[in-house]
C-alpha cells in the first residue's frame, strides 16, 4: 500500500492538492481565497495529467533528428489537454475576479457572509 503510494507520489500529491483547493473554494468565506482555491484545484488536475503524460526516458514529440519511431516520444495529447485546461481556468478566474471587484465596489468587503447579510438588508429596504 505505502509502496504503491510512493510509486504514484506525484498523483497522490495532485489529489491532495485538489482536495485542498476544493475545500477552500467550497468553505472559505473570503472571495479572493476562494479564487485561489479554485486555481489550486484546477492546477492539481493539470499536475495529475502532466505526470501521467510523462514517460521517463522518452523525448518530447518534436522530430529534430532522424528518429521517426513513435516509441521514442511521449504522447503530445496530455500536454495539449493541459494547455486547453489552462486557457479555461484563466478565463474562469478572470470572470470571478471581475465579479469580486463588482461586489467589493458595492459592499466594501470580500467576506461572502457579510455581503449576503448586506444584500438581505438591501432587499428589505427596497420593499
Amino acid at each position, binding site marked *: 500500500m505505502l509502496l504503491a503510494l510512493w510509486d504514484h507520489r506525484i498523483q497522490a500529491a495532485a489529489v491532495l492538492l485538489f482536495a485542498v*483547493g476544493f475545500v477552500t473554494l467550497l468553505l472559505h468565506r473570503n472571495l479572493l481565497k476562494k479564487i485561489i482555491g479554485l486555481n489550486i484545484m484546477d492546477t492539481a488536475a493539470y499536475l495529475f*495529467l502532466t505526470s*501521467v503524460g510523462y514517460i521517463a526516458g522518452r523525448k518530447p514529440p518534436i522530430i529534430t533528428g532522424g528518429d521517426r519511431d513513435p516509441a521514442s516520444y511521449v504522447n503530445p495529447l*496530455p500536454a495539449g489537454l493541459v494547455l486547453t485546461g489552462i486557457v*479555461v481556468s484563466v478565463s474562469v478566474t478572470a*470572470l470571478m475576479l471581475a465579479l469580486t471587484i463588482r461586489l467589493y465596489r458595492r459592499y466594501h468587503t470580500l467576506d461572502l457572509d457579510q455581503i449576503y447579510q448586506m444584500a438581505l438588508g438591501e432587499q428589505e429596504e427596497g420593499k
Partner: protein
Amino acid sequence: MSFAANFPLFCIVLALLCAVVSGVLRWRAAAILTEVMAAAVAVMSAFVLALALRTGQSTSYPMGHFPHPWGNELRFGILEPLVSGVFSLVLLCCVVGGRKALNRDTEPEKRNLYFSMVDLIQASLLALVYTNDLFTGYVFIEICTIAACGILMIRQLGRTTLASVRYMIFSLLGSGLFILGIVYLYSITGHLLMPELKQSVGELWQSGQYRTPLRTAIALITLGLCIKSGLFPFHFWMPDTYGYSTPCSAGILSGLVSKGYIFLLIKIIFDVFGTEVFYASGMQTVLYVFGVAGMVFGSISAMRENDIFRMIAYSSAAQIGYIYMGIGLSPRLGIVAALFHTLTHALTKPALFLSASRLSEVSGGSKRFKDLQGSAHKNHAAGAAFAVGSLSMIGLPLTMGFIAKYLFALAAFREERFLIPTLLALAISTVLNTFYFARTLIRVYNTRDLGAVKPVGLGSQKRFAAAGALLAGLNIFFGVIAQPLIDLLTRGVALLAG
C-alpha cells in the same frame, strides 16, 4: 453521406459565429440574429432527425477527416437532434417572450452582449448534445458556465451579482470534479473518444483491473454533473440564481442549461461507462436516493416561499430530483422517463418564469403572493400560460407532466426493490406540488377585492403571447399525443445504447 449529416456541425458553428458577430452589432440586430439562429437550428435539427429516422442508426461525424481514434467527432442518433431541436425552440421562446423584461433589466449599450452570451449558450448546449469526445464536453461545459454567468450578471442588482458568484462557485466545484474524473479515466484507458472509452472501460471492468480508479472516475464525473445541474443537496444556488435574474435568463438557465448537463450525463452513462458497468458501480442508487430526497425537500422549500420566482426555482430543484430518480431507476424505461421529463421541464419552466414576470408586472412589480391577488384577470395571456405550466408541474392529465409521472411509475413496476419508495415519493411529491401550485393559481385567479380592472390586451404583448402559446401548446400537444414522442425516445435510447 447525406448532406444533412453536416448540419450538427453547421448548427454549432452558426451559433458560435452569431455570438462573435453580435458583439459588434446594435442590440436590436443582435436580437434578430439570435432569433433567426435559434429558428434555423431548430429547422436543421428537424432535417437531422429525419435523416436519423430514415437510416435508423447513429452516425459518427469525424471532424477534419481524422480517422479513429485520433480525431474529434460529433455523433448523432435520434435523441441528439430531437433534444437539440426542442432546446432551440425553447431558447427562441425565452428570447422572444422575455424581451420586455430584458429591456427593463439591462442597459441598452450592453444588451447586444446579452445576445452574444445567449448564442454561446446555444453553441455549447449543441456541442454537449452532439459531441462524441469527453474533453470537448468539458471545454463546452466551461463555456456554458461562463456564458450562463454572463446572462445572469447582466442584471446589475446586488442580489443578482451575489447569485452569480454563488452560481459560479458551485459550477466550478462541479467542473473541477468532472475534469478530475476525465483525467482519471484517461490515465487508465488512454482514450477520450466515447466508443473507445466504452470498450476500454468494459474490458477493464471484466478483468477487474484498476477497479478503484474506475469507480472513482465514475463517481467524480457523475457527481460533477449532478452539482452543476443542481441535484439535491447541491441546489442551494438555485433560488437566488433563478429568482433574481431577468426572466429570459431564468428560463434559459432552468429550462436548458441544467438539462444540457443532464443529457451529457445520460450520454456518458450509455456511451462511456456502458449501462452494465454504471448500474453495477452503485452510483445509480446514489442518484436515486438523492433524486427522491430532492423531489420531497425541493417541494417543501417551495411551499415555504413567499416569492413567486423563488417558489418556481425551488420547484425546479424538485423536478431535477424526478429526472435523477428516473436515471437511478433503470437503464431503459427509467431513462426514457427521465428524458421525457427533461423535455417536459424544458418546455414548462420557461413558460412559468415568463408568465410569472408578466403577472408580477401588472401587480405593481411585486413578486409577493399577497400582491399577486387577481393578477391573472389583469393579464389573461400570462394567467393562461401560468395555469398550463402549473397544471403540467402538478401532473394533471392532458399535460406532459402527467405522462412523465406515468412513465416513472411504469418504470418502477419493473424494478421490484424501487417500487414502493418510487410510488410513495411520486405520491408525496405530487401532493406537495399540488399544494403550492394550486395555492398560487387560486391566488392569481381570485377576484375578491379586485374592483374594476382593464386587462392588458394581446395586441400590446404579441411577442409574449406567441412564446407563451407555443410553449403551452407544445406542452398540451405532447400531453395528449404522447405516444409518438415516447416511441422516438425509446428508439433513441436503444440507438444510444448501441
